[in-house]
């Protein structure tokens, strides 16, 4: 019983070490390909366009309702003190620093990251990657690096968009649900928030984009076992990305403050 449990824990650690090792290995290959830059520019633009455009509706929806949720939470908090003038600040602070980057990062991972894993995984099981190698095209330079760059840039830009939409949503729902006028919302928002609150979140967005890109590419190119393998890889990739996002969030918050 105990031996069994220990064996399972040991096995889980080995599996984890394998995946982490794979991601780190891929990271080095990507860095090497970046100095001097050797990657496919067209593929970069194509991916940026595809990933960005594909995610806009989902990011807007997520951000809009997140703003609503945050304004409700902060009004529960400040109303007791009769300080409705703090609602704009509370909602904005939470959205910019934490909730915005995390929820948008998770949605981006679900939308773009999992798609990327499925796409690369399908290329592996249909031997397209081997096909590239046979043509002396380096799959890392050609497929991975453009995707990594595209995801970092796109999540960063989408988070800016999401922050704006979330604040609009918060102001709107603040008026509708919590009796906070636009003017009061705006005053409290603009007077108490600082540019660092915004940049704090945007640094996170860039790092989250990096994490989503590396995990999704790694789980994609290491697919084994046919169709079922692709489903499993997508599953593992989004879970790993969620873990990576939360853990790096902790580290960034700690080091930036």
């Amino acid at each position, binding site marked *: 019983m105990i031996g069994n449990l220990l064996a399972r824990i040991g096995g889980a650690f080995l599996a984890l070490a394998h995946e982490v090792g794979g991601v780190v290995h891929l990271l080095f290959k990507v860095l090497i390909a970046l100095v001097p830059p050797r990657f496919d520019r067209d593929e970069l633009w194509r991916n940026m366009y595809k990933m960005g455009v594909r995610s806009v509706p*989902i990011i807007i*929806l*997520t951000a809009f*309702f*997140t703003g*609503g*949720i945050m304004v*409700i*939470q902060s*009004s*529960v*908090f400040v*109303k*007791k003190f009769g300080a409705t003038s703090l609602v704009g600040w509370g909602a904005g*602070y*939470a959205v910019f*620093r*934490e909730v915005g980057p*995390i*929820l948008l990062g*998770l*949605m981006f*991972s*679900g*939308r773009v990251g*999992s*798609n990327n*894993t*499925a*796409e690369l*995984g*399908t290329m592996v*099981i249909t031997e397209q990657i081997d096909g590239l190698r046979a043509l002396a095209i380096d799959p890392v330079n050609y497929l991975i690096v453009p995707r990594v760059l595209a995801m970092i840039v796109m999540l960063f830009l989408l988070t800016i968009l999401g922050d704006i939409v979330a604040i609009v949503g918060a102001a709107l*729902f603040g008026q509708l*649900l*919590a009796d906070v006028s636009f003017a009061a919302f705006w005053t409290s928002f603009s007077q108490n928030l600082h540019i660092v609150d915004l940049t704090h979140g945007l640094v996170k967005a860039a790092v989250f984009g990096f994490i989503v890109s590396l995990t999704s590419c790694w789980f994609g190119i290491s697919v084994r076992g*046919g*169709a*079922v393998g*692709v*489903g*499993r890889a*997508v*599953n593992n990739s*989004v*879970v790993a990305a*969620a*873990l990576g996002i*939360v*853990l790096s*969030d*902790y580290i960034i*918050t*700690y080091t930036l*403050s």
Partner: protein
Amino acid sequence: MTRLANLLASIGAFVLGYVQASITLISIAGRSFRGIFHFRGRAKGEVLNQMYQMGNRSLVFVTVTLGALGMVLVFQVCLQINKVTGDQSQVGPEFIKGMIHAFVPILTAMMLATRIGAGIAAEIGSMVVTEQVDALRMTGVDPIDYLIVPRLIASTVMTLALGLFAMVVVILAGAFMAHTSFGVNYNVFFIFDKVLPGDMIIGVSKLIAHGAAIPIVAGYCGLTATGGSQGVGTATTRAVINASLSVIILDFIISAIGLATVQKVG
């Protein structure tokens, strides 16, 4: 002019697609809930099995992610309070309250939408593309009763259980962070009298709603998978994103209702 017409046509097709998908989704949801009531003995084992798998797969994941988030959130709150009033005695009670009715339900559910939702869609999707679902229907089995209902029951129970567990984890992690980084005493932090019954009601209703929404949305994505190996990947992707989105929207709706009812302040 033709461009405009094309644009309008594609918008129309998009909206129509969404309406059709929603109708299917609602019908699946209705049939699943109806399925709960004429649920018979045979599948009890399946429910327990699903509960075990969901719990087993998610326990460590939820502990790690929510624990880290708890520490981060407390950190941000303390940072801000230091700047404004410097009175750290309110941190614990307000943090605990906020975690219970707001942050833990949505964050746990987002994590489980990824973990459980992707798993359900991959499983059911691969059964669809390998014709196992057709084979079930040939023997008179309703795929909704057989595949979705046990997962619906299991996920609702497990999301509630994991959410309550996550509340404990988050509060402990938060207290630890507040103590080590900001010197907040544990006996000042662990004050639960700010938590009103209304907060508990909202937190629990959110967990139940999210726990029910995830398997229905993911099951819908799995059952509507088409094509071969790509179909399973696409279904999994759609499940993650749609389940997460439905969690966010449901959370918003319940928060708004909660604010207007049980959290109404003076």
